[in-house]
């Protein structure tokens, strides 16, 4: 049997609320500490206790950490999902299960290992009975560690981190890990090929989730006011502010330079945020689709009255309550025009946790510079899952407070100042804020038509002129929003355009396309709307462009097509969303299909496993069947079950 080293996926099936997240995070962190590139994704139901939940860890020596459809190692702790979990192991894979689950072992093509979880935990007199289930999860950590080679020392340090150095829980959990490992060493014979070996590929890296990164980024951006209403998957962003603000903005006098308010709903959350932004505070709110829907009227008001605010939308699957605990890029179109009338919003699109931090602070600079709402679209996968990252980089530019006038500033230009007067020709006027004592500073903000001095007006010409200025201002935003990231392959004539968390899948697909199929593809990751000149240039200089969207309609595809009508026919929609994050094989197959009308021929085995199964389970894979199923994005076997 050929060893498979540092290149496989592990999935753990447990019950929601059983406390498995400590165990799973411990595995993830230990592997990370061994220097091996790794990612962890939690696939959880909208439920507090009882329903099945899965955690998938991908280990990849080359650094690709997107989701894969295949799992080589499966750990089954939940009787309710046992059959599904067993069915999901790749042929030749390994299957670990708690031996108190008395269900038929129907597969002979996997290495099966029964673990006496309950027995081992009961043996430890130091584990109180109501902690047994919780600690039981650590037994599988120990068994797995022994069988694939996770360093126990790394586990110890992962637990130390998790329990913030508290010795009692560290010991209790570590004892269960050891018990599992020792038992496995004494009783199990290795029948599968999967091994971990230490590397040095995570040195200097950090591991965190996008919501924590966004909260920290906002704090380094000087957030002063945040209002929010709880909603998965955005909740942990606001809670991150609550966690870190007291430490990071601690002052000697013990007083606060910020306020975080849990509002009564999202209408109030954005209303408060707008009030604070209007008054000159760096002000933000965070939400997800349903909350964003409620914020619509206010979003239009803020656009029209030119109030700087930052709105984080950690996207989940809609419409409606949808799949509240699954990931999506479904809010792009909605956000681009959020508000009635001629509203156009500025959108930032972070691609990873590093950029969640970076855009966290930059969003305030852009909002205050543009005197406009700035929406930052993250998603559940980025926001709530653990990702490796370069360490966060300290802001490299001073805060940009934009065109704000205090008393002495206003005194200088008072003869040529109106709240909505465009003296610089960039569409951005100068603003004053409450508390300014200059007798000319005050104005009444109104959502109704207004003239350059903010006075009520229904004049047709004035209305049109003001809307034109707002358009000029929106164009000016192109100079301030992040430019796209462009990756070139010499000789490539086609390109992929993506955004947000699909980057990891697209990068992997590009690698496979070139290495395994000889297809050279450039890649542009769009990072903001409105689109900058670099986006136009990339589109202009490629023959064919695949626009990857994690939604049904191809929302980025539409935005690009509308803003580049002359190139619209070059833009090919690659769009799908079922709540699971994008995979490299889906991107790869979609590109192959649309470049030469067929899926990867060389990869028959893989195609069979990952693509054709649903469409043509028995027959040899017909081209048509593959085409259809690949076009719909290969549905992994497990997906149907979840």
């Amino acid at each position, binding site marked *: 049997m050929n060893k498979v080293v540092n290149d496989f996926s592990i999935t753990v099936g447990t019950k929601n609320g059983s406390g498995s997240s400590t165990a799973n995070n411990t595995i993830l962190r230990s592997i990370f500490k061994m220097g091996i590139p790794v990612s962890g994704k939690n696939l959880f139901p909208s439920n507090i206790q009882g329903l099945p939940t899965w955690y998938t860890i991908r280990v990849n020596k080359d650094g690709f950490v997107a989701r894969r459809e295949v799992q080589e190692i499966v750990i089954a702790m939940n009787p309710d999902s046992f059959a599904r979990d067993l069915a999901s192991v790749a042929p030749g894979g390994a299957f670990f299960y708690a031996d108190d689950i008395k269900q038929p072992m129907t597969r002979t093509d996997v290495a099966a290992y029964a673990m006496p979880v309950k027995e081992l935990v009961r043996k430890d007199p130091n584990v109180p009975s109501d902690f047994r289930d919780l600690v039981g999860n650590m037994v599988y950590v120990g068994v797995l560690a022994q069988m694939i080679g996770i360093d126990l020392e790394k586990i110890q340090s992962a637990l130390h*981190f998790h329990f913030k150095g508290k010795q009692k829980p560290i010991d209790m959990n570590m004892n269960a890990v050891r018990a599992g490992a020792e038992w496995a060493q004494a009783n199990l014979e290795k029948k599968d090929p999967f091994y971990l070996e230490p590397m040095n590929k995570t040195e200097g890296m950090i591991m965190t989730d996008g919501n924590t990164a966004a909260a920290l980024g906002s704090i380094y951006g000087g957030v002063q006011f945040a209002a929010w209403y709880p909603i998965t998957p955005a909740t942990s962003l606001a809670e991150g502010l609550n966690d870190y603000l007291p430490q990071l903005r601690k002052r000697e*006098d013990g*007083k606060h330079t910020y306020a975080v308010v849990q509002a009564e709903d999202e209408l109030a959350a954005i209303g408060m945020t707008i009030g604070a932004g209007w008054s000159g505070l760096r002000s933000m709110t965070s939400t997800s689709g349903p909350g964003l829907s409620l914020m619509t009227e206010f979003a239009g008001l803020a656009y029209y009255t030119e109030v700087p605010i930052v709105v984080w939308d950690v996207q989940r699957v809609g419409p409606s309550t949808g799949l509240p605990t699954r990931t999506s890029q479904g809010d792009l179109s909605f956000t681009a025009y959020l508000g009635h009338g001629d509203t156009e919003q500025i959108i930032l699109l972070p691609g990873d946790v590093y950029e969640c931090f970076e855009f966290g602070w930059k969003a305030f600079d852009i909002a205050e510079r543009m005197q406009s709402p700035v929406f930052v679209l993250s998603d559940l996968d980025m926001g709530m899952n653990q990702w490796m990252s370069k360490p966060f980089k300290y802001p490299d530019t001073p805060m940009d407070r934009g065109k704000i006038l205090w008393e002495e500033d206003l005194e200088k230009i008072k003869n040529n100042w109106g709240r909505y007067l465009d003296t610089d020709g960039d569409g951005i006027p100068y603003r004053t804020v*409450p508390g300014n004592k200059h007798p000319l500073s005050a104005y009444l903000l109104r959502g109704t038509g207004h003239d350059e001095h903010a006075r009520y007006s229904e004049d047709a010409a004035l209305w049109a002129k003001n809307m034109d200025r707002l358009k000029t201002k929106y164009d000016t935003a192109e100079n301030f929003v992040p430019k796209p990231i462009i990756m070139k392959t010499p000789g490539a004539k086609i390109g992929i355009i993506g955004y947000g968390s699909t980057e990891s899948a697209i990068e992997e697909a590009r690698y496979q396309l070139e290495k395994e199929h000889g297809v050279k593809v450039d890649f542009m990751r769009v990072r903001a709307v409105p689109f900058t000149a670099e986006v136009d240039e990339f589109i202009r200089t490629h023959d064919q462009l695949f626009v990857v969207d994690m939604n049904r309609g191809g929302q980025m595809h539409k935005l690009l097509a509308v803003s580049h009508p002359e190139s619209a026919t070059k833009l090919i929609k690659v769009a799908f969303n079922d709540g699971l994050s994008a995979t490299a094989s889906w991107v790869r197959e979609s590109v192959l299909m649309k470049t030469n009308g067929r899926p990867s021929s060389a990869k028959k085995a893989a195609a069979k496993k990952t693509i054709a199964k649903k469409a043509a389970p028995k027959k040899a894979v017909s081209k048509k069947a593959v085409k259809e199923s690949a076009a719909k994005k290969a549905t992994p076997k497990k997906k149907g079950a979840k």
Partner: protein
Amino acid sequence: MTEALPMAGIAPAQVNLAGLAKNDYRGAPSTLCQGCGHNSISNQIVSALYEMDTRPEDVVKFSGIGCSSKSPTYFLNRSFGFNGLHGRMPSVATGALFANAKLKGIGISGDGDTASIGMGQFKHVVRRNLNMVYIVENNGVYGLTKGQFSATSEKGLALKKQGTNPYMPVDICMEAIASNATFVARSFAGDPKQVKELLKAALAHRGIAVLDIISPCVTFNNQSNAFHSYTWGKDHEEPLHDITYIAPRSEIMLEEEMKEGEVREVALHDGSTIILKNLDKDYNPTNRWDALRILEEAQKNDWLVTGLIYIEPDKPALTDIYNLVDTPLNRLTEADLRPDPASLDKINGLMF
């Protein structure tokens, strides 16, 4: 920096202790109907602040949408203001007043804006005890959308095109007290003296001060026995909803100030009446239970009880709870707001 601004009205003869003339407190000329109760409330706001020597720069105006919510344009030109969305004034005010905890908010709303679409935000801003005078210019009708029922329209009220209101009205004062308001009062726009005195008390209160001011709509709430209104007049019944012509009317003013404990019927233009009941001399406004009791009693008698109904002066206002720095938050700079690079190294070290 106190140079005179071109203001509506005539040049003032006098200045107050802040060195300002009454004109410095005025706003643009009103575009509301002549005789609208809302106008006289604006006038009393001007007078109250002038007499209290408050600097307009220390006040921020807020409103929602409605005829009532337009009125911040008509007073305090020298104060910042935010005329936002229908029913959402409280949230905007909440965020804005964090920027400078020394600023006093004056929120203007209507009965529709507060008790219909905005009931949620109203109750929550009351619960949070924001440092703001919250004035409901209550006419029992939607003025700006031309005469629909509001949540404070009394049961049985019949309006053109609306039929008869089948629901009991919301009592704004009761709602405020139920939400733990720290200052609750009711008045009548036609009793300017009481309005002004209550305004002064409300402005002096730190925390939320809810003022429910009955403010007749001359144009739409025209049912002859309506609580909040007087009709257009019997001979004008037909064109009521066509406001291409609005006859000039004068505001209803009490000829004589109400005495403590007095119950008085007030005749409206069309001969209909409302009954005002001034609070008794020995009424104790610091007892929540009593406050609810007199409101209940008034409802039974079809009275509109006026005066200071409830006050709890010592509860901290919203921003007080947050232990903010003395400098207004909106004057803080990068040095106060951006943690140093060393702290980020530490954070990175903690990210496993």
